[in-house]
């Protein structure tokens, strides 16, 4: 007899607790509705511009026709994916995308840190400031202009080749040699953003307690040792946060810049998924196919991000993207 009663009490307790939580959510909402109001604009914008079009991804599995609309077009299943995955170009475009993203991260990420450590050694404020002024400048030049300047500077008759011609006979075909595409893309990226990216590290280094350095110097630590053992550890948390951020950015590999730097001849290296999607979709009007390729790109991105997130977690002991 006792047991059922116990059960009853237990279940009563349960339902009571449930009631309380339900009520308290409503109550919570009532007393904190401003907070939800705060979220509203962002939620609405994201819902409209990001979520509503998502159903359109359906056309990746259909044979899209404008007259029939997205929902009315005929289903073709995985046809478009199959076509893409078996096309002779697939592997090349896929690898180009992965290579470009990773190289950009691996080469581009450490450089601002090194720059900041170097800048930190300049003692005279004026000199430091002027150098910084120059380093930051390219960040304020647009990608289109950077691409335009690349074409001007690297043209076979441009200034860089004029300098090179002192050492080699024929000009370096920068913009037409597929092997040159990735170096140009990455180096120009560093040129444009590394100085600006170093700002944050410079700021962090300014927080280092000067007494630490004095003490270390008294103990006979060399400049280099102090950099490694005092400056670098100070930067560690910042590095972790930024690494997480840039790994997140790995997916945002720029369509715009890659497209701007493409020439017919460097396509073997410069054709990446986003530019391919653009060409097939907008220029050839192959909407379903290009949406399928775009979807494939998204899936790859998710895989990449999860992978990268795990790596970062291990490296930074616990910190992760989300």
């Amino acid at each position: 007899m006792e047991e059922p009663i116990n059960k009853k009490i237990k279940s009563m307790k349960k339902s009571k607790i449930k009631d309380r939580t339900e009520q308290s959510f409503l109550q919570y909402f009532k007393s904190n509705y401003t907070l939800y109001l705060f979220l509203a604009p962002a939620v609405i914008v994201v819902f409209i511009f990001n979520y509503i079009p998502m159903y359109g991804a359906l056309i990746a599995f259909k044979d899209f026709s404008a007259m029939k609309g997205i929902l009315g077009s005929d289903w073709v299943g995985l046809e478009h994916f199959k076509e893409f995955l078996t096309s002779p170009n697939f592997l090349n475009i896929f690898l180009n995308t992965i290579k470009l993203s990773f190289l950009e991260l691996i080469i581009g990420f450490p450089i601002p840190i090194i720059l900041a450590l170097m800048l930190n050694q300049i003692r005279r404020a004026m000199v430091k400031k002027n150098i910084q002024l120059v380093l930051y400048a390219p960040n304020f030049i647009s990608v289109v202009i950077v691409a335009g300047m690349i074409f001007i500077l690297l043209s076979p008759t441009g200034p860089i080749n004029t300098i090179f011609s002192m050492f080699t006979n024929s000009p370096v075909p920068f913009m037409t040699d597929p092997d040159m595409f990735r170096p140009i893309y990455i180096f120009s990226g560093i040129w444009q953003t590394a100085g600006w990216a170093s700002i944050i590290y410079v700021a962090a280094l300014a927080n280092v307690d000067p007494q630490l350095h004095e003490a270390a110097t008294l103990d006979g630590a060399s400049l280099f040792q102090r950099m490694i053992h005092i400056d670098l550890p100070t930067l560690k948390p910042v590095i972790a946060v930024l690494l997480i951020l840039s790994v997140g950015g790995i997916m945002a590999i720029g369509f715009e810049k890659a497209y701007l730097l493409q020439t017919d001849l460097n396509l073997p290296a410069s054709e990446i998924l986003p530019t391919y999607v653009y060409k097939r979709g907008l220029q050839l009007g192959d909407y379903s196919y290009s949406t399928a390729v775009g979807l494939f790109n998204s899936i790859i991105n998710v895989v990449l991000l999860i992978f990268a997130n795990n790596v970062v977690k291990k490296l930074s002991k616990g910190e992760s993207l989300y």
Partner: protein
Amino acid sequence: MHNYSRKDRAILFFNKILLVFIALIIIFPLLYVLLGSFLDPSVLLSKGISFNPSDWTLEGYRRVFQDDLIVRSFLNSILYAVGFTLITIVFTVLAAYPLSVEGFKGKNFFMIFFLVTMFFNGGLIPTYLLIKDLGLINSIWAIILPGSVAVWNIILVRTFFKGLPKELKEAAKMDGASELQIFLKIVLPLAKPVIFVIALYAFVGQWNSYFNAMIYLEDQDLYPLQLVLRSILIQNEVQPGMINDMQAAAELSKIAEKIKYASIVVSSLPLLIMYPFFQKYFEKGVMVGSLK
């Protein structure tokens, strides 16, 4: 403090030289284009940079300003960048605050809601159809609304809010302040640096982009600078207003070459001149904004 060893001095010296060298690498292209903009393209092609005064000309600039497309698109770009930045700030800061409040119910749901958009999107055509159905084709809203809420910005601001000392809010709550009052009177004033940071990223990002404008804008009068520059620099099209009189095609293309340099200078200079005045704010903003 200044008792460096000889080896350290050498390193310091080398460090300085290296930095100056890097600075030169950065300046070189800018300087080349600046000097090139005052030269005739044929001189530039055959002789390179020449300091012979007779080779100098303002022809490129005259042509750039003769066509109001560049000036107008410059103003458009500023409008888009400022509008986009304002929207980004308001929406991001507002959204980030509740997500930073301890015990906020639905936090996970909303975080996931925002995070999903990082991975998936509907693709070009469905998005275009939506923009069209909203009647936003050829409208500034198509440029400044989509993309104004970015997950990374929300995370950045939320992390900043979380790092604010709890005592401040608790004290205010004791005094009977509502969440709104806390947000406006306590959190917002402290958030200036982080707002500055996202504002800057938003501004520069929007300033640089041309894709949405290319897809959604139809009227040339609405084009942002980058779209016009793209056709001058990359596609090599001459803008119509720049040729008043008929000229041989060869002459035309020389003009295109000519305009290239001058339009690069004209369109980058305003920002390049302005940014040093803001430099100290950047540093402060970045420092406070992302370390917490």
